[in-house]
């Protein structure tokens, strides 16, 4: 058989790589939640001048997302050739 059953436990490297892929899937969810936080403040209903703090918050979260994506893209990027076995797990 070309593709035997995936082993029960993976090597340290492969294990780490898969968890990083999990993290990569989480980034947009976390980002979306953080971008929704201003809805809780309801800035339209207050009289305070909240454009500046709001803007700083949005741009800070934005920069954080870019940094996270940068770090993760290094870890999950091109698959090393040795890891032929586990492809199936990454389906969707």
């Amino acid at each position, binding site marked *: *058989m*070309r*593709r035997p059953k995936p082993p029960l436990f993976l090597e340290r490297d492969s294990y780490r790589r898969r968890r990083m*892929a999990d993290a*990569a*899937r989480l*980034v*947009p*969810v976390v*980002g*979306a939640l953080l*971008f*929704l936080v*201003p*809805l809780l*403040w*309801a*800035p*339209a209903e*207050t*009289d*305070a*001048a*909240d*454009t*500046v703090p*709001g*803007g700083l918050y*949005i*741009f800070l979260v*934005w*920069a954080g*997302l*870019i*940094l*996270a*994506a*940068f770090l*993760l*893209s290094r870890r*999950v*990027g*091109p698959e090393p050739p040795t890891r032929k076995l586990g*492809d*199936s797990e*990454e*389906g*969707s």
Partner: protein
Amino acid sequence: MLPFNVLVAASVGYVAVLFALAFAAERMAERGRGGWLRSPVVYTLSLSIYCTAWTFFGAVGYAARSGLEFVTIYLGPTLVMVGWWLLLRKLVRIGKAQRITSVADLLSARYGKSASVGAIVTLIAVVGITPYIALQLQSVTLALSVFAEAAPGAPAWEPKETALVVALGLALFTVLFGTRNLDADERHHGVVLAIAVEAVVKLVALIAVGVFVVWELGAGPVDMLARIEASPIADWQLDPGRWVALTFLSGAALLCLPRMFQVLVVENVDERQLATASWAFPLYLFLISLFVMPIAVAGLERFPAGSNPDLFVLTLPLSAGREGLAMLAFLGGFSAATSMVIVAAIALATMVSNHIVLPIWLSVRTPQSRLSEDVRGLVLNVRRLSIACVLGLGWIYYSVSGGGAALAAIGLISFVGVAQFLPAMVGGLFWRGATRTGAVAGLVTGFVIWAYTFFLPSVGAATPLWAEVQAIGPYGIGWLRPQALFGIEGIDPLVHSVFWSMALNTAAFVGASLLSFPGPLERVQGVEFVGVFERDGPAPRGWQGGVAGAEELLAMAQRILGPGEAQRLFQDAAQGQGTGGFLPEVTPDFLQQLERRFAGAVGSATAHAMIAQAGGGTSVSVDDLMKVADEAQQIMEYSQKLEAQSEELSRTARQLREANRKLTELSAQKDAFLSQISHELRTPMTSIRAFSEILGEEGLADEERTRYAGVIHAETVRLTRLLDDLLDLSVLESGNVQLNMKETNLGDVIARAVSTASAAPGAKPFRILREPETEKVEIVTDPDRLAQVFINLITNARKYCDAPMQEVRIEVRRQGGQAQIDVVDNGSGIPRESQEIIFEKFARLGDHTRAGGAGLGLAICREIMEKLGGTIAYLPGQGGAAFRLTVPLRLARAA
């Protein structure tokens, strides 16, 4: 004040530079250099066509009107990009596996290579993108008007005419670069490089204006924050509905806009590019957005209420007398507009030609015309025309809508329109149960609701009829009012349209998918798409082999992919199967491969239909259906190893069979030749003996003597020729031949051969078609030997060509260090089963007496070509008999 003419000249000069860059990049890519064109940086920069003139001018206007809300347009794409592992990676992988050419092609391929899905998506895209193109024309015109009105003594400003001129110029540029060739994979290196450069220009321009505003007009960042606090937009009027809807919409637009799909998926080369773009593109958006608020606030401070905030990027530097900066800002906006229009027009033109025109053309033409039509030319012309039409539509929309609305409002109309693709696209990628019926239902529902609640109000707002419909509903039906569906009033029009169109679209898509039953091809494609990461076995295939003739397929492929590309593809396939020549066995795998290549040029639905028409065997085999069923998966995997082994065996067997057949045929021919040669030698010998006996007798008249001697002479000449040929061949074969190498012109060699071969009288009218210009190739070779080959080929054509008006075409091409010469006649060609033995000694086809030779001509040609370091091969699929010679321009001194 900056003279208006200088500005126009600068724009034209800028376009000329882009043009030169694009041209240079195409040249480099053609020569196989320019790997950097495929670097992740260029890819990321090309994605920046997301930031159009709407971003460049409109974002500031948006911020001046609604404060922070403008960032939502960039937050959506940021989320999609940083989440590339979830969605984009799969999209790109599928795009490459299926050779997808556009977003319409993606949906069409997913839903059973359906022509109807492709056509619907194309229509929606054309209608949806029209306002967007109008928006670009409007913003360039607006920007120009700033300079024109300020310039002293400027002629009366005509916005519509200016927009028309801009549209014409853009159409020309796009036609020149987007449709230069019909790429097999739809990649456009030149255009991608041009838009990457434009990406840098617009980023630099916007940041330069931002730095000018913060540090020159203001006193640094802290001061800037204080001014924002003091500005009219200091209080953030966050509307939760719009905030969520816009973020969702902009994320969807990144996936669904045809131009974004083009750069994101079609122009993508490998996943490494995507990994880099996942953070670099959000960074680009971040930098573009950074100075938007400061510029907006500075504009609000300095200009009176009522001045157009969409133009602050230009008017701020102008009012401070910084004309150079204003010029840079104008070029930045100009870049943003042109790059968007170019890529959008290319993407839409590809969709129109592949999904609307070609399917119609396929259905109306007759089977006889199939071989004679030039598909490539047709496709390219259709694309050129479509580009002109798309820009024309944009201009009409601009004229009709009056060009009055704020830029951001127009852009959003397009976003909601193309977002209608999202349910069918995402559903198709992750849900095997999505069917074609569901996709069509969802797309049509979404499109109708979008048009009714958002698009028509934008163009028809001014007409009294529409105003009435808006107020009381069509025919007075209140719950059908376009901006208060089902009687729910008071929602923002955008949120209203997004909510109802997406909700009903998704409901129709899911509902119809659940209730309908997919066809076999849909199910196969569903598995291919949803499980693109799981599959590493052979792909399920839609073809039964052996129905179409390889030669017919080659003829068709040449018309779609071009002769060079098609011949290479067929040659490689034949080599892969272990046979030589240009004609591989028509296996299901080969048909599959061929369909993929066609799909890269004309879209999957058309490619499928064309192969089906040529082959007729369009069924999905039992194997494929088994693969669709989950239970069969295990068994299939187990048998894969066996399959691989048996494939190896069958390849060897095929080679052996081939060799055996050749040997048997040759042996039979040798026998036939021996009796033939004995006969050929015996006949002249007999007459020589008889006549020489007569000559020996007494009492012959002089004239009789002369006649008999003449007969004897003629017979010996015939014998000598036969023996010369045999000797020539054996000398060539033994390798003791002396080559007389000289530097010469290929045209001269051909001319000499043509005049020798034409000298002999022939039974039929005969002519030779040459192109003297291409024949001017300097070459070091043995001109006498090479001429001998040409003479042989032309003489053969005169002997065997069965057309009433014989024609021989000679074409010369340079390829690397070689000259390639095709000699093609207009007869009926050589039958498939004989093509492989014609170069063997003693091979003679059909009627022996007619030929009057011993069947050594082509064998001698082959030996000569080998000695000259070249090759000769039969080229099938050219109409008549065709031979391709290759000769090195300079023979390596081996012996």
